[in-house]
């Protein structure tokens, strides 16, 4: 029993997703072959599957675009939404091609022809909304309806409606290549079977005996006997929970009480679906329409108690800093992110990182409620030549990056300076005669440094080492940095890390 199926085809979707002027030839290549070509390029003789050199010889002004299926898929998402407006259970075959069951929508919209034209217009609108450039006449969406997804897809390329039972006749003249199985197609072609009609004319039992399961599938498709059911994409359920507060809550306890019940509702909703979330967005709106959002992360999945606690802390944080919100809280919305199946939490077996006492965890959450996620951070070692690059601060609760233990040629010898300034302080270095010390292009000092000035005072240099040149990212014009480093020990016993960059001296760090 084949199902009446509607297919929506956006021809040359990978090209359309790039938003280029329609009269400009362009093509996408992958593995030296044309994946998609624009209308103009096709008019010049560029074909799908053609070698790059041949394509460029036929149309030298072809603009070469990058092949990025993920981008195509992202761009297709709004189009799928437009298709879903006509009927549920849409199956995306690939970016640019989607199928859905046609019977229900056709009855609702007054016949298959009416549905077809309405959908084609709506989808063209959706595409035009995404693009700044006009749509080429040949790039318009084509909608086809036939028995089964395979026939419908081919009907869509023609923009036709195939009457029920007429699929076999419609499919017969198509070349055997439209079957998505190149090995079998090659074999069939060499056997002299060049069209779907030729294949359908054979006895199915013999085809199965000779070609196996692939042969059976090909035979079924070509005889219009495509009873594969659609695999619609799952529409994600709306998991966010909203609570309107009337009258608005001005006091912490009132807001916290409402927050608690909202949090419980969210926890129940997640539990009912067997889901857990690792990220939680808490949004509030005041009676004056101010909105605040804060995203909370949890090292593992949120427990109901943890959700309620976060909401309470956050509401306290917002309401106590009275200057920030001008009115009471009128609306609380909790939106879970990073949702996955609730599979229980795992505690590290060896790692002591997991062993955080509740006391510490609560204190950190409190600090984060007051200062934001960056208020409490966890350090981890990283690679780098500069002392401040060698550690990374990660907001508490975020996953830590892998520790980088690879060697860094050109990093400073140990010990590492204890105080590293965010912004290097300006300094001046002079020799015994008071002349400014410079570093030549070959990393040689012009004279012996004897005194350094920073913080408005001159200090005598007792011992120094350097220059140690650092030439980083010379392959990148914007990120390129060329520096020369010096260590100096001053007469008062302190030691500093000086840097010469461009025409300036800086104190970068202090060995306090």
């Amino acid at each position, binding site marked *: 029993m084949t199902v009446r199926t509607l297919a929506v085809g956006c021809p040359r979707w990978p090209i359309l997703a790039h938003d280029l002027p329609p009269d400009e030839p362009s093509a996408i290549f992958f593995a030296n072959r044309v994946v998609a070509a624009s209308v103009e390029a096709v008019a010049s003789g560029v074909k799908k599957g053609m070698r790059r050199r041949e394509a460029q010889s036929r149309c030298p002004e072809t603009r070469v675009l990058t092949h990025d299926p993920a981008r195509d898929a992202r761009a297709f998402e709004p189009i799928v939404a437009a298709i879903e407006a006509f009927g549920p259970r849409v199956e995306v075959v690939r970016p640019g091609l989607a199928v859905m069951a046609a019977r229900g929508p056709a009855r609702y919209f007054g016949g298959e022809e009416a549905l077809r034209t309405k959908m084609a217009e709506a989808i063209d609108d959706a595409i035009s909304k995404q693009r700044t450039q006009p749509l080429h006449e040949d790039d318009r969406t084509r909608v086809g309806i036939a028995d089964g997804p395979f026939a419908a897809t081919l009907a869509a390329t023609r923009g036709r409606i195939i009457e029920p039972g007429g699929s076999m006749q419609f499919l017969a003249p198509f070349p055997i290549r439209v079957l998505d199985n190149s090995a079998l197609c090659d074999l069939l072609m060499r056997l002299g079977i060049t069209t779907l009609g030729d294949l359908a004319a054979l006895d199915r039992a013999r085809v199965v005996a000779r070609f196996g399961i692939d042969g059976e599938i090909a035979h079924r498709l070509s005889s219009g006997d495509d009873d594969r059911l659609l695999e619609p994409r799952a529409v994600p359920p709306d998991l966010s929970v909203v609570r309107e507060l009337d009258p608005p809550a001005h006091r912490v306890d009132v807001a916290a009480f409402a927050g608690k019940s909202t949090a419980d509702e969210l926890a129940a909703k997640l539990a009912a679906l067997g889901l857990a979330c690792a990220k939680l967005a808490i949004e509030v709106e005041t009676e004056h329409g101010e909105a605040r959002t804060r995203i909370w992360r949890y090292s593992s999945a949120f427990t109901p108690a943890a959700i309620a606690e976060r909401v309470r802390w956050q509401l306290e944080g917002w309401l106590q800093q009275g200057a920030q919100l001008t009115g009471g809280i009128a609306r609380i919305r909790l939106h879970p992110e990073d949702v996955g199946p609730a599979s229980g939490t795992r505690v590290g077996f060896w790692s002591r990182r997991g062993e955080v006492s509740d006391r510490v965890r609560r*204190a950190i959450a409190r*600090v984060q409620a007051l200062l934001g996620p960056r208020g409490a951070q*966890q350090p981890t070692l990283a690679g780098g030549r500069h002392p401040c690059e060698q550690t990374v601060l990660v907001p508490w609760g975020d996953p830590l990056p892998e520790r980088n233990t690879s060697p860094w040629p050109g990093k400073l010898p140990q*010990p590492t300076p204890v105080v590293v300034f965010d912004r290097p302080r300006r300094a001046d270095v002079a020799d015994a005669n008071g002349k400014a010390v410079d570093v030549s292009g070959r990393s040689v000092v012009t004279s012996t440094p004897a005194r350094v000035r920073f913080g408005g005072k001159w200090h005598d240099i007792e011992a120094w080492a350097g220059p140690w040149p650092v030439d980083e990212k010379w392959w990148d014009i914007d990120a390129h940095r060329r520096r020369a480093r010096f260590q100096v020990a001053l007469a008062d016993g302190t030691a500093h890390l000086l840097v010469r960059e461009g025409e300036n001296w800086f104190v970068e760090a202090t060995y306090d």
Partner: protein
Amino acid sequence: MTDRLAALLAESPAISRASHLQPPTLPVLEAFTTLLPDGGLRPGSSVQIGGVGATSIALALCAKATQDSWTAIVGLPSIGLRAANELGVDLDHIVVVGEQTVDVFAAVIDAFDVVLACPPPQRKAPRINARVRERDAVLIVLGTLAENDLTIVGSAPQWHGIGNGHGHLAARTLHVTATGRRAAARPREVTIWLPDENGEIRVAQQATVRRLRA
């Protein structure tokens, strides 16, 4: 009866005096044991560190404690955490807190065993000290803290390994003095390698406990 009680007390000196019932001190590196009156960081005490090398002293002082206890670094954005790691601080037990407000201080002192911070406002010091005592935390302040229990000052730094245009900063000796209240009233001093050429922290000169001349 009294004989038996006396014998019991002799067997277990820990219960003989009430002052021994306070929580155990947090361990410190061997170089600091003679410097601190209790041989470690006493929970519920506040320490002020100043002079030369204050940051290194502060990090080295809490290095051993971070192996098992959680430490918060509050309001010290320029502290070099790689250097802290080299001085023996276990970064897995460190939380870096950006700003230092009274609320943040209170939350952090309540939960963390060791708090390394920049000086709080002068008038808040008594309240913060009281909270530290109540919660059995150790507060180490880089700078001045009124009514502290212990003041540690670094002086007479001497760098080794660096010449005139050659070598590099490799090792440093530092003279460290500790004075304070109660048991710490008698000043103690020690000269330590912070660090020595192998990156270790050790006593350079046998610690001497003597009264400093005024």
